[in-house]
């Protein structure tokens, strides 16, 4: 049954541009996909490793900025992608070394500070980043001669990357490494006593998380063909975290659902009201107060409870 559902979901996802109608909606779906990749990356740390990062927009932005810079220096897309991802990994390594000096709240505060450094550089170091005006790039890559300029083809390319990301996450969760990451979240001392190198496990989880954040950042760059300090602001990190929390931490489906929710609310809300930030803040507060475990597990729990409430009545009737 699971396979059929999975296959069905795949077919639906693959054919989105054919039935959804209108490039606007295709573009929104593309956005959902690359934000879902970002959220999946953040989830590795926030969900599985129990380390809440508020600096991931920094990594996302570093990939986008690096990609834009390298491309505007006249290099081809292979160099752009490889270079941007290598830089992001390097930055993730530096972030990890610093942020892993603390856990819990210390980790949160350090990642906030690191994210703000990236923002400060993007905003102030005008000779490199062009400051508030941002950097524009000239085009999307065309792998194997296929142009990605049309919304549908870009969607399919994003979908392929997205599927790769989901697969890597599934493999990661099921792998011994994934289990050890969860172990460092739940019982760091016991893991240490068992001979696991807790710091190294967290460090590798950070790199893995940073890698997918970078991939998402590159897709963002190719999608918008533009990057500005807005991309790396604290709000962006918070949005990514909201996607994870809203959907449900440490689940595979949660961040994807969360990304869909945030992107849709953002687009719908901004069409009707200016006060997107207020809505975002209100959603934060609402979710924490009413559904602390996230929408996907929360809905499952309510559903189960509703079913459980129905069942005895059914037996009584029968």
């Amino acid at each position, binding site marked *: 049954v699971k396979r059929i559902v999975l296959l069905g979901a795949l077919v639906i996802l693959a054919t989105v541009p054919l039935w959804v109608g209108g490039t606007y909606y295709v573009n929104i779906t593309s956005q959902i996909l690359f934000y879902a990749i970002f959220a999946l990356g953040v989830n590795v740390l*926030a969900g599985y490793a129990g380390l*809440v990062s*508020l600096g991931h927009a920094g990594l996302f932005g570093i990939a986008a900025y690096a990609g834009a810079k390298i491309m505007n220096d006249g290099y081809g897309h292979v160099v752009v992608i490889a270079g941007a991802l290598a830089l992001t990994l390097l930055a993730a390594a530096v972030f990890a070394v*610093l942020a892993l*000096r*603390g856990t*819990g*709240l*210390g980790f*949160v*505060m*350090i990642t*906030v*500070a*690191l994210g*703000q*450094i990236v*923002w*400060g*550089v993007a905003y*102030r*170091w*005008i*000779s490199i980043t062009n400051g508030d005006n941002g950097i524009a790039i000239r085009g999307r890559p065309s792998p194997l001669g296929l142009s990605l300029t049309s919304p549908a083809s870009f969607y399919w390319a994003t979908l392929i990357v997205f599927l790769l990301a989901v697969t890597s996450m599934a493999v990661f969760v099921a792998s011994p490494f994934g289990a050890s990451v969860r172990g460092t979240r739940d019982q760091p001392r016991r893991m240490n006593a068992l001979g696991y190198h807790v710091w190294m496990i967290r460090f590798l989880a950070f790199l893995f998380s940073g890698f997918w954040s970078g991939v998402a950042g590159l897709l963002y760059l190719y999608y918008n063909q533009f990057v500005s300090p807005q991309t790396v*602001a*604290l*709000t962006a990190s*918070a949005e990514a*975290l*909201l996607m994870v*929390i809203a959907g449900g*931490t440490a689940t595979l489906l949660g961040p994807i659902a969360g990304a869909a929710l945030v992107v849709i609310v953002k687009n719908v809300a901004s069409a009707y009201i200016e*006060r997107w*930030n*207020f809505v*975002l*803040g*209100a*959603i*934060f*507060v609402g*979710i*924490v*107060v009413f559904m*602390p475990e996230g929408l996907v597990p929360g809905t499952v729990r309510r559903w189960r409870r509703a079913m459980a409430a129905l069942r005895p009545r059914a037996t009584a009737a029968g």
Partner: protein
Amino acid sequence: MNLWVVLAVNSITLGGLLFLLSAGFSLIFGLMKIPNLTHGSFFMLGAYLATSLIAHGLDFWTAAIVGGLMVAAFGGLVERLILRRLVNAELAQVLVTLGLSFMIADVCLMVWTGDPIRIATPSALRGATSVMGLGFPTYRLAISLIAVVFAVVLWALLDRTRLGAMIRAGVDDPAMARVVGIRVSRLFTIVFCLGAWLAGFAGVIGGPILSVYPGLDQEMLPLALVVVILGGSGSLLGSLVGSFVVGFLYNFGQAMFPELAYVVLFLPMLVVLVVRPQGLFGRQVA
């Protein structure tokens, strides 16, 4: 006047403001283990409220105190109604305070529009005072003085009074403090309101120098974070030293490496983290 002296005076002024802001943050963080990401918003909210109060005819100092009180009342509500439910849930606290800061920022943008508002310097403190043959802007000297006075008052409060002893007991061992009959829960509210008041007050007296504008909250919050990371959480002395270090780094960094001011600001924080993760004056936490 010599550029370096101007920079030094500005640094001390900013340090004073940061002390008022981060002392509250540090107390809240140290006592309640709550990373209050709305603290920057309290700062901005205080300043905005004061602009309206002044527009309604209040004088500067009354506006500063009343503005601070309004922020404190708001902080108390947040603590009682929301944060109280989220004890020991760090992630939830981070999200709620961050969410609130977005909401506050948006409401401020709606009420006071996007244009920067400058709070007029109180007339008694305009102009310059000459000290040792050099003229200093009086208002900046006043801010430094206020910061020093508050540092002493807070120190006396924490170190010399019964309330202070209870707060310290709550920081060290909340469970034991409860056992000996200290109402830690009420202490939390008091400390949260005090911290919010300090932040709001700092926002108002910072108004004549910094002005109030959207984004001020997100600019002050990282500075307060750096101060607390540098100085160590829960330590008043740490906040004081950290504030002045950050004040100097920020001003001199901006003057000397304008494009890299932020990096200059965060580098010492990183060094401290690597060498002494609990902060310069923080205690080792188990």
